[in-house]
């Protein structure tokens, strides 16, 4: 299943705030750890290997 990069967030601004808020009061190391856990949790939810590889490749591309 191809990676969906079209608008798909049900509540975009709410999500963005929650993402930043996840890191409230965390130092850099704790933030890195939390991000890593978040990536793993969301990756498992997506599941499909090809979709994940697409996301990884897009993420790695330098602007």
């Amino acid at each position, binding site marked *: 299943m191809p990676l969906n990069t079209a608008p798909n967030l049900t509540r975009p601004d709410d999500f963005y705030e929650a993402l930043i808020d996840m890191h409230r009061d965390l130092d850099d190391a704790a933030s*890195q750890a939390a991000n*890593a856990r978040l*990536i*793993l949790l969301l990756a*498992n939810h997506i599941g499909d290997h090809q979709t994940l590889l697409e996301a990884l490749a897009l993420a790695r591309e330098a602007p």
Partner: protein
Amino acid sequence: MATDAIDTAIDTAIEPDYQRQQYAYTPCAEQRPGHAAGAPHPVVVVGAGPVGLATAIDLARHGVPVVLIDDDCTLSTGSRAICFAKRTLDIFDRLGCAGRMVEKGVRWHLGKVFLRDSLVYAFDLLPESGHQRPAFINLQQYYVEGYLLDLARALPNIDIRWKSRAVNLESRDDHVALTVETPDGCYTLCGRYVVAADGSRSGLRKLMGLESHGHTFRDRFLIADVKMEAAFPPERWFWFDPPFHPNQSVLLHRQPDNVWRIDFQLGWDADPVLEKTPERVIPRVRALLGPEAKFELEWVSVYTFSCVRMDRFRHGRVLFAGDAAHGVSPFGARGANSGVQDAENLAWKLAYVLAGRAPDSLLDTYASEREFAADENIRHSTRSTDFITPKSAVSRTFRDAVLTLARDHGFARQLVNSGRLSVPAVLHESPLNTADGDGETFAGTMVPGAACADAPVCGMAGVTGEPWLLPRLGDQFVALIFGAPAGLDAATRSALQALQQGAVPLRLVFVTDAAIAASADPWPGATVVRDVEGLAARRYDARAGTCYLIRPDQHVCARWRTVDAARIGAALDRAIGQAGQGRPAVAPAPKPMAMA
């Protein structure tokens, strides 16, 4: 004991101390004055470790005389390979020494992974019954070598030469000439083929100007063999960041003789000389066992691990096997186990080529199949070692994230990688396989290229034999036919009998689900067994008429839903690397097998 019944009879009444055993050097025929150079030996095997010994024994079973040289005169010292996987035990069963090993070894199949002081993950390597051999035994390498050597020395056509080091190698048209250095000076040893099973620092590899390539992990591990009475169960235990060794990993295995193998991760900055001293080791062991524990250190060393392989395992008439060809980190037990699988792949192919039954190009498939398997083993071992020794800060962050999530979430437990334990590679891409036909679909894992599954069976009434399927397979090509002989029509029967006597002899094994009467339909050279629990049919997804073609190394190379002798014959040609070349017009005289 039933488990010993298929072992070759060896006098085991007095077991030597294999750790201290020394074997005698005696000058060989080539060193006697006036010796006239004769024909080259068919095969010279260099290195009498587990892989060289398994190769020599397997070749001898095929009737090929072997010269086996080793630069030493003792068995392996220290703490080397200890976890021997089911496939390896199945191979040793065919060779004739698994019974002794399973008797002596510590069986295990459960592994547990701990993070700090709590259990994160447990795995079962052989969750089902109905296999003769366990998932793993732990047994010190010197026992494995000792038992193999006892077997090799009892075979008439293995000439074992100790204190014999190959110091030069010359490739000639139809043989290889080795210069062998002994206590009495050098001599020339010629072999039509040479098997280089001389370990990770292979002298033959260096003599040929070849190298292994791969990755070395920036880490150090303390390996300790500790003799103690301890209450840990026979399970593989792995800790991440335990209280007794913070921020590092520890691995614990039980071995025979109350010897425990403990691996302590030390980190790259550890001093490998200092860390071997009792002053450093004893406190680490005591921290694990508790202040009251009584133990002795039997062996201590510090290792750095690499995953490497030669680009090609075949160089003309020289075939590289075991650690000489490829090396892995030990998490997953893929070193010695894959080496023994190299040996079983190579031996029958060499025997068939030497007997004129197969073209020399069959040996190219040893290299391609085992290079493929080595890549799989390296991939798994690398992934495990990356998880245990993350290569970068961000890798460590993800590793720790997995461990944290694993406590509460099943998906993360799948990602915890303290070692993916050795299973035989499925040789999916081998050119020796015949692909499943259109419309012939099979479920399960017995695909072309897979090592055969075992199953409980019983023989004909009044005829004894192992109550297992695997001892009926191997050493020759086998057509494994589900159904009774009476179910085949006369034309098929006659065609199969022709294949049995053909240039590449085929053995027939029928698997039935009904009780077999002793007098029912005798078929010379065919074995009939009963699938007592239906597990053979289940594991092979078999119906009446299903037919598998099995290689001498117990790997599936073809399968069909009906018995068709022409298709079997074509698959047989393909499996010896002779597809499309037609069969030799005259069958060469079959070489007798060394074993009765």
